[in-house]
């Protein structure tokens, strides 16, 4: 059957680079990056400790296999996993685009459905490509706080990942023999040695990726991979500094929490929500504020009383689910000291409530591994000054390795509850 004119005809496609070796190379580079993004994504859900209290942002049900007690050490754990999730996800974009470019003719393959197996495979590829693009687009727009859609981001991004990952596992299993054959016949790296003048198309096979009537090469295979790598490196440089800090922070020119949100002074580091947004009433944080502390006993502590307790200083990161992090020197009262004062039983959970009246994360529950850590603080000061209102004055939670939104600001009450 002769296909209609246009992209359904093999002769429509002219690039001399397309072929099984190039697609295998791009796929093999992309796969580990996608694996990192997927694993760190599922770890992020585990870090929210969805089994505790009202922490879960997902509906009850299946496909939530990772139920680990999230530890409080190393302190940089969540900064690392979530920084990787966002940085690697963004850096993988050029590779994903190149991979999809390399197989573009397959979309228009003629006849569109050769057999039941081919139909099933095409449906699965829709889940693969649709799922991949959905995950990248929603994640990338989320870190820029842009939500032009009518679905819940967290739920859709989490379950969209399952659509993508399920199709990806099958795809990798099916395509592995093709990758192995391309490496066996062409060599894993040998085609990279060819300069532009030595660049020849891979051998044509009907129905394959290689163009039957290729144009002359204008770039070598190593040049094309270098192009993709340069784009990835460029994205890394303008993004990674918001998580890694140090000299790279000055280069984070396009990162959402790069240099444009850094203010002056000891409180001049980024926030995920201002006091105005959280509708924190200034009067509620003033001299009348009393921290409600409940274990087997109930205490009410003013800020002056808290400052009179033994103060501890810890240098800890706040790491946001959006990928940025900031390490500061916090000081305040250890949560375990407050637990002892309230007579909290061993192994209890800590429910932290904010003065914030609305919002899903105004109340979080911490497991014993988290709040009983020696370095877990009710912070009152940062970098030798009082917390600013935007950073949670009069008091905020700072627990090592805890996702930033769980480091509750404007704390109103601490309640230790038996598990």
């Amino acid at each position, binding site marked *: 059957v002769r296909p209609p004119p246009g992209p359904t005809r093999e002769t429509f496609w002219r690039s001399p680079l397309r072929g099984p070796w190039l697609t295998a190379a791009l796929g093999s580079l992309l796969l580990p990056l996608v694996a990192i993004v997927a694993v760190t994504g599922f770890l992020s859900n585990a870090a929210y400790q969805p089994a505790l209290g009202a922490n879960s942002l997902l*509906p009850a049900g299946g496909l939530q296999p990772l139920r680990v007690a999230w530890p409080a050490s190393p302190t940089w754990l969540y900064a690392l996993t979530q920084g990787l999730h966002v940085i690697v996800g963004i850096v993988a974009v050029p590779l994903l685009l190149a991979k999809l470019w390399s197989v573009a003719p397959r979309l228009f393959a003629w006849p569109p459905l050769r057999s039941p197996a081919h139909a099933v495979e095409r449906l699965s590829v829709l*889940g693969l490509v649709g799922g991949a693009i959905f995950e990248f687009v929603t994640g990338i727009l989320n870190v820029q706080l842009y939500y032009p859609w009518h679905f819940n981001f967290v739920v859709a991004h989490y379950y969209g990942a*399952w659509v993508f990952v399920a199709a990806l596992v099958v795809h990798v299993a099916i395509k592995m023999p093709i990758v192995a054959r391309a490496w066996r016949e062409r060599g894993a790296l040998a085609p990279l040695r060819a300069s532009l003048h030595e660049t020849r198309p891979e051998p044509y096979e009907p129905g394959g990726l290689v163009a039957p009537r290729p144009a002359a090469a204008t*770039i070598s295979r190593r040049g094309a991979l270098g192009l993709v790598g*340069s784009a990835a490196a*460029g994205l890394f440089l303008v993004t990674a500094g918001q998580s890694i800090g140090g000299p790279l922070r000055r280069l984070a*020119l396009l990162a959402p929490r790069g240099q*444009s949100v850094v203010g002056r002074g000891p409180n001049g580091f980024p926030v995920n929500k201002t006091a105005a947004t959280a509708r924190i009433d200034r009067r509620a944080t003033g001299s009348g504020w009393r921290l409600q502390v409940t274990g087997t006993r109930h205490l009410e502590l003013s800020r002056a009383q808290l400052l009179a307790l033994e103060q501890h200083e810890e240098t800890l990161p706040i790491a946001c689910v959006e990928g940025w992090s900031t390490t500061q020197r916090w000081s305040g009262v250890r949560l375990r000291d407050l637990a002892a004062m309230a007579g909290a039983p061993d192994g209890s959970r800590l429910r932290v409530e904010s003065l914030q009246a609305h919002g899903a994360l105004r109340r979080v529950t911490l497991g014993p591994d988290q709040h009983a850590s020696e370095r877990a603080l009710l912070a009152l000061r940062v970098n030798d000054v009082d917390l600013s209102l935007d950073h949670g004055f009069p008091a905020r939670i700072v627990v090592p390795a805890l996702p930033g939104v769980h480091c509750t600001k404007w704390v109103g009450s601490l309640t230790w509850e038996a598990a």
Partner: protein
Amino acid sequence: VIAAFRRRYGASPLHLAAHLVALAIAVYAASKVLHPRYSRGPAFLVWLVGGAVVHDLVLVPGYSLVDALARRVRLTPLALNHLRFPAVIAGVMALVYWPLILVRADGNYVRATGHHVEGFALRWLLLTAGLFAASGALYAARAGVRARAARRARGGR
């Protein structure tokens, strides 16, 4: 039996079984999101399929056309690639960060950070100009080296 299945289906039973498992996971996952509490109507499915459609029918033809037009100018491959590199690097930066560059969500940004979205467009333009300038300078140097080598080769003949 397996041979008959292969003939009618077009692949091994394992192929079908693996795809059915993946499909079941996808359908279950989609059903969780499509709950009216989390998705207005089929919004989730529209975005799931729509992203692939926009990529395959708009983005790929779009950048392929730009590259085809650049090739039509009949530049040398060296010159062409010194245009491709800055264009692709700046292009993917724009593709990833266009909501900040075009200030699509200033309200959310102010509520989250306390600052307005500022300077992203300027920084992207400066980066783009810098990339093209650096690539152009490198091209001039490389083309100069090649021209001198060609002159020497002619002179030695």
